[in-house]
């Protein structure tokens, strides 16, 4: 009887979290999509969305096109980016047991940025054809990220030791950042201006066509990470204890690093470099929710996505008729956040 009550309690709690998350996403999409240069209300957004359920909509065609072809894809890309980077940060923080780990610390994002910038600069300079396009940029980003992971893993020793891994990551990050700066310096001034804006992060390239790959990668990785949640939690006990709990720590750490790279590269190819999200969101979620590993991953995905959507709203509306780079806003919020964290040491102890 007690077991049955416990089972019902667990199921009710899970159902509550699912409903609350869906409502939160619905609220975010309706309110965030209404912000922007064109005058669109939350009612318009709700009306256009309800068309999909067979209801009639009296919203003008131009507004419908803005909502469906510009703002919704942008919302989805922003959500995927925040979700993916937060998820990668949460996983990397877990497998390295380092609360400061994120895709940037291991050089993954720098490698991906370098690869993508190199491909974009080559297209602009006519070295490669325009046909290479989005897939070429994604491939360039992934090759750059994979290269950085390869260097980090090679330098991390046979058992992929955390300390060596972090030091190698910092070195690789600087190396690829230098490479990106060199490409920017060597490019045509017009090209380097647009490249610079892109490296600081932007969702302007969002359209339905380039959402499929990041959606598949983020959802696929999320499912895998949730499957591995128990093993990820065991790694928090330390490498030696995790081994005695039956975990192959070396293989797990390599696998998680590669999956995080895949997610980061896919996102960087679409949005450029956006820092601090992968560091900040898992930190906050872990601190506030004290939740279990599988719920932590889901919570990071949800709150990371919502956070990024609102950062995008700020980027689009803070300065009239101008759009701020996303990375500038996340870095500003992130640095203030870390100053606050340092003032209150218990957050990092």
């Amino acid at each position, binding site marked *: 009887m*007690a077991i049955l009550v416990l089972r019902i309690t667990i199921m009710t709690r899970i159902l509550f979290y699912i409903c609350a998350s869906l409502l939160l996403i619905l609220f975010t999409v309706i309110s965030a999509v209404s912000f922007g240069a064109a005058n669109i209300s939350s009612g318009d957004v709700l009306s256009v969305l309800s068309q999909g359920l067979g209801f009639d909509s009296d919203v003008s065609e131009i507004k419908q096109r803005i909502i469906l072809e510009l703002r919704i894809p942008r919302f989805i890309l922003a959500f995927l980016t925040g979700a993916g980077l937060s998820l990668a940060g949460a996983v990397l923080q877990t497998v390295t047991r380092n609360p400061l780990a994120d895709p940037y610390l291991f050089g993954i994002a720098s490698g991906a940025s370098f690869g993508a910038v190199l491909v974009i600069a080559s297209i602009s300079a006519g070295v490669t054809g325009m046909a290479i396009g989005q897939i070429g940029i994604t491939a360039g980003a992934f090759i750059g990220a994979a290269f950085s992971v390869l260097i980090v893993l090679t330098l991390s020793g046979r058992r992929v030791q955390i300390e060596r891994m972090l030091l190698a990551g910092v070195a690789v990050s600087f190396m690829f950042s230098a490479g990106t700066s060199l490409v920017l310096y060597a490019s045509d001034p017009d090209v380097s201006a647009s490249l610079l804006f892109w490296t600081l992060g932007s969702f302007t390239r969002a359209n339905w066509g380039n959402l499929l790959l990041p959606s598949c990668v983020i959802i696929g990785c999320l499912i895998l990470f949730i499957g591995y949640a128990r093993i990820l939690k065991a790694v928090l006990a330390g490498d*030696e204890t995790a081994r005695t709990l*039956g975990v192959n720590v070396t293989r797990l750490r390599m696998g998680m690093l590669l999956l995080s790279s895949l997610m980061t590269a896919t996102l960087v190819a679409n949005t450029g470099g956006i820092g601090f999200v992968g560091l900040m969101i898992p930190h906050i979620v872990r601190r506030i929710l004290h939740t279990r590993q599988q719920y932590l991953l889901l919570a990071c995905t949800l709150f990371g996505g919502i956070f990024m959507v609102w950062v995008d709203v700020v980027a689009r509306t803070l300065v009239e008729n101008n759009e701020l780079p996303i990375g500038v806003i996340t870095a500003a919020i992130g640095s203030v956040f870390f100053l606050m964290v340092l003032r209150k040491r218990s957050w990092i102890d």
Partner: protein
Amino acid sequence: MALLEAQHLTWRVNDLAIVDDVSFHIEKGQFVGLIGPNGAGKSSLMRCLYRVNEPDAGKVLFADEDVWQLSAKANAKNMSVILQEHSDHLGLTVWDVVSQGLTPHKQLFQWDDANDHALMHKVMQQVDVLALKKKLFQPLSGGEKQRVMLARALVQNTELLIMDEPTNHLDVHYQTDIMAKVKSLNKTIFASFHDLNLAAAFCDHLIVLDQGKLVASGTPQAVLTQNLIADVFRTQAIVDHHPINGHPRITYHYHD
């Protein structure tokens, strides 16, 4: 039948034998203590047993199976381990830390079920940590942390429990508290000790290691002699009987 057997175990670092041709066995239900001075190779020997240090020579058998031929997961179903130092567990609660013990018994995508929760409740009550279940692990006291580690090991539900200096950093109350709890489990235990009186009080059998070699093995009464303590620990001591429990009692000469 021996539950665990070390056969001519040798483990080297750069040609230096840290564990040097060590052989012994542990019977089912025995409480075996490992003692020896600092640097004797106690932790290194234990790591060979629980599959962290791969031996350069020799074998470790659990129920006649070579542990190094088993997967990490299969081995984790045979033996649980409590180390002397603990990770911070990055924001995990006591409940989460105890649930780590279920890891080797679960597949990917397999969550804790109501039976697991019932087991965890029972074990946490047994070692007196149920009241701490929602607290964060990291700020707990040393004694509380060690009891949580014991609860995790019990949830892992293995025949053999290995403990590397389980009473390190604990005060006298927590030392006797944790040892009494361990002793009451009626499991097969292999534990290393620095405190010879504690080893004498709780162990059925002692193994003495010095410079990587096994130098003595037997009951506490047979092993803990004045000569052995003088030779291995380089300390003068008087060995007599504990007035209440009757086991050997060691009194050290602190001044010449």
